[in-house]
């Protein structure tokens, strides 16, 4: 117990320990703030992706799609673990304002609003139909033509605060959407006199998913409309994906495995039926695997960040080691005294370790406190910096980020505090051994003889 008392006295009486405390506290502060913000951003991104996709996807990469999706949906609906299912067609086409020739390439998604807004959170991102998603594909301009929903960044710009000005919604706009129907073998299919199928849609709403690719390059139309445009409605009708939402207590892995088993049996049962070979291209994936191409870069950034923090921690360890060496060197006489009055090798180690733990605890407390205060006011600080100097951490006109995430996760705090203690313990290890090996007579005698 005296070791804690002595360690505490060393802490408050030695100015050099302040350097160690400040270094570790600064590291804790930086790691805490950056990890909280990064975890918030990655978490937000994953949440939005999950919300956009649902829990599980039965999909093919092929634009041809796969048949008998409706039958498999019936199989899924009869499963107690499945909450809801929705057929989807995802394809590419051309879109142009009605009557104009400047068509641009675009990704088009066909969904059934009734089912899709139950499976996914897409309905919550609508602006005009958030409370009534069933009428999402009713054209604003002309009730006689079908409506389409546009990714919000296709029609509105974000201002510097990340907000959209909805007064500029193109409520009267109509669009000509052209698709290229494919046969079941993947060849272009002639429709009438050409290979292009064009239909006029009226603007019905915008969708704000918070995902840059979807908000900036995706148009949603009714599933039946797109199926017709793509020539996929002729029997056996085709879709490119089925999105599934599981019941609340069903785990992602378990649910996906179950669906996989169901699909394998279903595909086997369909053998010999027309276009059944297309079923072989279908994969069953949970939402994370389905979207790994977009999630992976974020996760790589997280790994890069962790590597960076390891470098930060190594620097901190080095500084703590140097500081401890300085302290131990200046305290060899004390160590000699302690050993002269009977302190053991491990007792001296314990004293230095206690000292290191105290530095770690104080530093972690200061770092977390400073980090907590900074995170609490991070958006106000950024707002002030923007108003005063025009500086923004992320340009809101470019990045789909609203507020900087500052939700503190206690798990992160616990890990950082443990790491701070570990850094101090690692840094003190060599000096502690050196101190413990000190021979009392070497430090206490007035002269060598």
């Amino acid at each position, binding site marked *: 117990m005296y070791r804690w008392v002595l360690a505490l006295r060393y802490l408050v009486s030695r100015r050099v320990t302040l350097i160690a405390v400040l270094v570790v506290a600064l590291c804790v502060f930086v790691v805490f703030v950056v990890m909280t913000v990064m975890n918030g951003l990655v978490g937000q991104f994953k949440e939005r992706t999950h919300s956009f996709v649902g829990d599980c996807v039965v999909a093919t990469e092929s634009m041809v799609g796969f048949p008998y999706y409706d039958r498999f949906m019936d199989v899924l609906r009869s499963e107690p673990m499945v909450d809801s299912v929705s057929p989807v067609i995802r394809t590419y086409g051309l879109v142009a304002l009605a009557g104009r020739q400047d068509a641009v390439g675009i990704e088009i998604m066909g969904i059934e609003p009734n089912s899709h807004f139950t499976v996914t959170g897409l309905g919550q991102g609508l602006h005009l139909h958030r409370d009534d998603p069933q009428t999402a594909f009713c054209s604003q301009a002309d009730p006689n033509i079908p409506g389409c929903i546009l990714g919000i960044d296709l029609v509105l710009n974000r201002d510097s605060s990340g907000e959209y000005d909805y007064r500029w919604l193109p409520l009267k706009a109509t669009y000509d959407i052209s698709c290229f129907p494919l046969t079941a073998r993947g060849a272009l299919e002639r429709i009438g006199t050409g290979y292009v199928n064009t239909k006029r849609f009226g603007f019905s709403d915008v969708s704000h998913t918070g995902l840059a690719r979807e908000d900036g390059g995706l148009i949603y139309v009714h599933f039946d409309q797109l199926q017709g445009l793509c020539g996929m409605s002729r029997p056996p009708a085709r879709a490119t994906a089925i999105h599934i939402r599981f019941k609340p207590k069903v785990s992602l892995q378990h649910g996906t495995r179950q669906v996989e088993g169901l699909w394998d049996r279903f595909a086997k049962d369909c053998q010999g039926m027309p276009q059944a070979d297309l079923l072989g291209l279908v994969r069953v994936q949970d939402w994370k695997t389905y979207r790994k191409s977009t999630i992976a870069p974020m996760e790589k950034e997280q790994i890069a960040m962790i590597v960076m923090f390891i470098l930060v921690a190594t620097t901190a360890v080095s500084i703590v080691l140097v500081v401890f060496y300085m302290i131990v060197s200046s305290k060899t006489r004390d160590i000699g*005294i302690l050993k002269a*009055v*009977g302190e*053991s090798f491990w*007792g001296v180690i314990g004293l230095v370790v206690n000292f290191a733990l105290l530095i770690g605890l104080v530093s972690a407390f200061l770092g977390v406190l400073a980090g907590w205060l900074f995170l609490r006011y991070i958006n106000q600080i950024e707002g002030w910096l923007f108003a005063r100097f025009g500086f923004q951490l992320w340009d809101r006109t470019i990045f789909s980020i609203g507020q900087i995430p500052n939700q503190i996760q206690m798990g992160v705090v616990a890990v950082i505090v443990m790491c701070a203690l570990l850094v101090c313990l690692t840094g003190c290890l060599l000096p502690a051994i050196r101190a413990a090996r000190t*021979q009392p007579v070497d430090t206490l005698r007035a*002269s060598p003889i």
Partner: protein
Amino acid sequence: MNCDGSAILSAQGLVKSYWLGTTQVPVLRGVNLDLARGEFLAILGASGSGKSTLLHILGGLDRPDKGRVLFNGNDISSFTARQLNDYRNRRVGFVFQFYHLLDELDVLENVYLPAMIGKGLVGWLTHKRTAVQRALELIDQVGLGHRIHHRPWQLSGGERQRVAIARALMNKPDLLLADEPTGNLDWATGQGILALFGALHRSGQTIVMVTHDQRVASQATRTVFLADGQVQPGHTNPSSSNNSKIG
């Protein structure tokens, strides 16, 4: 004097040398010494004669190149690390020329430090009350009752040495070893310290004191001379002064 004639400590053929660069300097060349329980022995010698080295070896702070030290018949060089720590902590009390107090602790804490060595939280809670009580008594007896919460740097040299003596006595050691205890003090202050040693001796404390000062050595009941790395024939002093009681 309270000497019962039984040997508490016996040094047999102690040899010790130091390396100064590439030169080996012999310091002790076969020291033989017996110390009776309750004896107050002064080891007298010139600077560099190896007095302190001998005392460190007797106290278990250093090891001889050859020879052995028997404490109550047990060879301390065969002690395990744990036994050696226990020997330093409970059997021997050390008083150094330069006091060697911990600046971060106050007088009271410095004195009860040896009683707290090796005690965990439970040991601390169990023993603190007794230890503090004992430390307060000792501090009172060395005349520093009004200084218990002062730090070492707030005390005079004589006061620091009194604190060091109180600390050395904290665990009621069998043997008190003093290395030039008055060497850093003026004569009058040194006399006060010697008076304390005299009182300790009369209360039965076995003491070994090294000094280069004949007048200081005369306070002991027996003096031996250390010269050329060996103990020369000594003599018994008639008496020691001071009647104050301590321990």
